[in-house]
Every structure is written in structure tokens, then in C-alpha cells.
């Protein structure tokens, strides 16, 4: 395992120390819980609190999206493992100003359980918490079981929209409504070309044969829809757009934002090559790209591969996307 780390069981602790030191202009950690990262802008104006949380190993997600006009606090878990209920609870407490808290997270068993318990704890403090659970990954379940779908890079759009809406002074219900619309309007699909290794484990816990790719792979290496021959960027783009398109959300004339995220070891160059092919296909379908984001926005350690996310826009969502933010991962 070729890694620049100290104790493999303490990679998250060690990372957080470096993160705090380097971004003290944007975030700080909770006084009593180093697994809670809080925006320096928290409570600088009265608004609905926005929190999220998830396993580590996805950097810059989740903590990179903590900052002014985006996420107010982030609960940080072990690698690929949900944060504790306490960390979610501490996030809730750190951001609540009496207007309630929106917890915007991804649909995974552990996160669902821990958020549920944190909300129960917050109820005792009479803090109102509502959730939006990202389920943008079309590969993870068929459309008639849409609630089982996992959240992947579409979570970034969810946070961007939720953060913006809350900063416009919306109520908790309004924030939830618009953010839920954002995720309902969002679809993602991933491809994996080679696996990743959890430091404490020391070996990849799945394999991808050279010359093949896992189409529909999840953010932690969850199995894809199919193993395909590794073909050209043009083919891959066409397969990715097609499966998203087949979900019957996007139509002729739509305006969308597109996010391509490398999963870790895929060079930016390849992400731009894929984007070019995606853009060509969308143009053919008469879909206009309002904004495009390309880069390692939501990774899986050093996995080779990428995700494609498309969000259907309306005027409200565009306004939310356009709001400037001050975070490490997004501008």
C-alpha cells in the first residue's frame, strides 16, 4: 500500500488536524468534538442551519463544502463509515438559531440510522430538524424503488441549493422543499476503472479486471450494474447519458447543470475529454448546459473512475447555483 500516512487507524484524526490548520480562515472544529467541522460564518446571520455528514475518504466531500452560503456544519465519520449520532447531534446544536436545521445527507444505512438517533436527541432540546436524503445514483435501484437509491455526487448540488436557499432567508420548510426539488431533479451515474484501498485494511476489497470497467459503481465500490469492456470516452459518455436519460426526467429543451467528478486517480484531462462527449450528446438532445463543474469534487480515496451528475434547472435552482460561496471545495 503506497500511502503517505502515519497510523492507518488514525488517518481521519490526522487529516482533520491538517485541514483545520490550513483552512482556519473558513472553518473551525467544535470545541468538544473534533469530528464536527463548523463554518466560521455560522450564526453570523439568523437563518435555517444547514448540516450534513458522511464517511471520510470522499474529500473534498463532505467537509470541503462547509463554508459561507453552503453547509454550516459537517459531521465527519471514519473512512467510508457514517459519523456518530453524537456528531450529527453536535452539528445540529452548533448551527441552530431557533429557525430549525436542515440535515442534507446521502441515503446509506449507517447515515440513516445515525441521523435518526441524532434527531431524537435534538427533539429533547426542542430543535426542529428536517432532512433531505440524496438518492441521485440511478444505478443503485430501479426507478420504482427510487427511495433505495444511494446518494453520490449529486449531494453537492443539494448542499449548494440548500445553503443558498437558507441564506436567502427561507424558512425550514421552504429550504427543505427547494432542496428536495433539487435532488429530485438530479441524477448521477458512476464508472469504476480500478479499485481503492482503505488504509486500515491494506488491500483493495474488490478488483476490476484491466480492460473492463464497472458501470454503475457506487462511491464505496458498491457493485455496478454490469462489467463492460472498457471502451472509448465517447461510448462511455453515451452509456452514462443514456441511463440517466432513461430515467424519464430530462427532456428536450431543458436547461441543466453538469458535474463530472473524478473518483480519485482519474486525471483531469480525462474528465474534460468525457465532458466534451457528454456536452455533444446533450446538445444533440437539445439540452442546454447552464453551468459545468469538472474536477475531483467527490472522491473515493484513489479509485479510478468518475461520476456524471446532471441537474434539471428552473429559475429558482439557477439563482441558488449562482450564489457565491466561500468554501474549500467549491466556488
Amino acid at each position: 500500500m503506497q500511502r503517505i500516512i502515519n497510523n492507518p487507524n488514525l488517518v481521519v484524526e490526522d487529516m482533520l488536524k491538517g485541514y483545520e490548520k490550513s483552512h482556519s480562515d473558513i472553518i473551525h472544529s467544535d470545541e468538544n468534538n473534533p469530528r464536527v467541522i463548523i463554518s466560521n460564518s455560522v450564526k453570523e446571520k439568523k437563518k435555517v442551519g444547514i448540516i450534513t455528514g458522511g464517511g471520510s475518504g470522499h474529500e473534498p466531500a463532505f467537509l470541503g463544502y462547509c463554508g459561507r452560503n453552503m453547509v454550516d456544519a459537517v459531521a465527519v465519520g471514519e473512512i467510508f463509515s457514517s459519523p456518530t449520532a453524537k456528531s450529527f447531534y453536535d452539528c445540529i446544536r452548533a448551527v441552530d438559531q431557533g429557525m430549525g436545521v436542515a440535515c442534507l445527507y446521502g441515503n446509506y444505512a449507517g447515515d440513516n440510522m445515525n441521523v435518526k438517533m441524532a434527531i431524537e436527541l435534538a427533539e429533547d432540546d426542542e430543535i426542529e430538524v428536517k432532512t433531505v436524503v440524496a438518492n441521485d445514483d440511478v444505478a443503485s435501484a430501479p426507478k420504482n424503488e427510487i427511495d433505495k437509491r444511494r446518494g453520490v455526487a449529486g449531494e453537492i448540488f443539494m448542499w449548494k441549493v440548500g445553503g443558498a436557499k437558507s441564506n436567502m432567508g427561507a424558512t425550514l420548510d421552504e429550504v427543505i422543499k427547494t432542496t428536495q426539488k433539487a435532488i429530485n431533479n438530479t441524477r448521477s451515474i458512476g464508472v469504476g476503472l480500478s479499485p481503492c484501498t482503505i488504509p486500515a485494511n491494506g488491500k483493495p476489497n474488490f478488483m476490476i479486471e484491466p480492460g473492463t470497467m464497472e458501470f454503475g459503481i457506487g462511491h464505496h465500490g458498491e457493485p455496478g450494474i454490469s462489467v463492460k469492456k472498457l471502451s472509448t470516452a465517447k461510448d462511455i459518455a453515451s452509456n452514462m447519458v443514456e441511463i440517466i436519460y432513461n430515467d424519464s426526467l430530462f427532456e428536450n429543451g431543458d436547461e441543466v447543470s453538469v458535474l463530472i467528478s473524478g473518483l480519485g486517480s482519474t486525471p483531469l484531462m480525462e474528465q474534460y475529454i468525457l465532458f466534451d462527449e457528454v456536452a455533444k450528446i446533450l446538445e444533440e438532445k437539445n439540452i442546454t448546459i447552464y453551468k459545468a463543474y469538472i474536477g475531483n469534487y467527490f472522491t473515493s480515496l484513489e479509485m479510478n473512475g468518475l461520476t456524471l451528475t446532471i441537474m434539471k434547472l428552473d429559475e429558482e435552482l439557477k439563482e441558488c447555483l449562482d450564489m457565491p460561496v466561500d468554501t474549500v471545495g467549491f466556488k
Partner: protein
Amino acid sequence: MKDYIYDNNNSWIVLDIIEQIHLNSSYLSEIDGATGDGDHGVNMDKGFMLAKEKIPLDSNFTEALKILGRTLVMDIGGSMGPIYGTFFSKLSRTLKSKEEIDKYLFLDALKNANQGLLDLAGAKVGDKTLIDTLYPAILSYENAINNNLTFYQCLYEMKQGAKSGMESTKDMVAKIGRASRLGERSKGYLDAGATSCFIILDTMANSIQKELAK
């Protein structure tokens, strides 16, 4: 031999469980490494050792269960935190209703804990998880009660049920959690959670048996 134990002053039963998880933590990680991400022992050890610090030596059995449950829920995260946390919290909540814990109360506690777990985690028997240890353990225990065996004997049956439950996971294909990544290839390995669940149930039964025999 008694057919009940006191709640009072029996936190050592919980400390025994913590001790066994601690001693087996490398083994649990090793099993998890075969089909998962190899951290089950580390995850468990972290949470259980944290709880150990907080449990006063001469406190009640249910008080210790409550502390363990709360620590797991609050401090280990992942799926194991809420799952085992809920399990121990529910055990505590049912058992603390009486000062003497007999075989019937213990059955109620197990059933409530199991139900809490099913509500929360959504795994079913056969998914290759800790449920595959817990469910047959409770079943064997209940059968023993129905056959009018003593508390001591019922606990013996529970251990047998837990053991064969754990072993049954070896031939299963994982349907949930990280190991489901492997599909058919997950066959041939014990499930890590099923193994830790066996250790927990087995140790708890042994310790209660010791207390009964006092």
C-alpha cells in the same frame, strides 16, 4: 441454584462482554477483511473500550447495559454504533423493570432488543449479518423455555443457537452491507458481525450462568 439473577451490582457481566470483544478484536477485523473492509474489530473495540471507562465497577447490570448502549450509539458511528447501541439500550430498558431478572424477563428483553434492531437496521435472516446469530439464539432460548428448562439450561441452548447461527453465515451470500460487493464470492467466510454477536451472546450467557451458580 437460583433461577434468577439480581440487577444490583452485576455490571461485571457487561464488563466481561467488553473484555471478550477487546480480546477478539484482531480476529474480528481479520474476518471482516475477508469480505469487508477489515475494520469490524477496530470499530467494536473503540466503542466498547470507551464504554468500559464509563461503567462504575459495582453498578447495576442494566445501568452498565445502558451506558454501553448509549456509548455505542453516540460514539462509534457506522452501522454498528446504532445497531449494537440500540440492542444494549433495549435490553437495559426491559430488564430494569424488575430487580430480579428471571428467564421470562430475559426473553422479553431479547425479543424487544431484536425488534428494535429489525426496525432500525432492516436486515433479514439470511442476509449474512449479525441477525443470523441473534435470531436463532433467541429461538433456541424460547424453545428451551417452552420445554420448561431452567434459566441456566435456557442460556445453554441460547449459546448453541448463537453458535450454529454464526456458523450458518459461512455458506451465505451477503445481501447487505459492504460484503454484498462480493456476491457469490462472499460465500465460505463467516460474517464479522455475526461473529461479534456470537461473542456477545456467548459471553453474556456464560456470565449469567456463573451468577446463577453462585
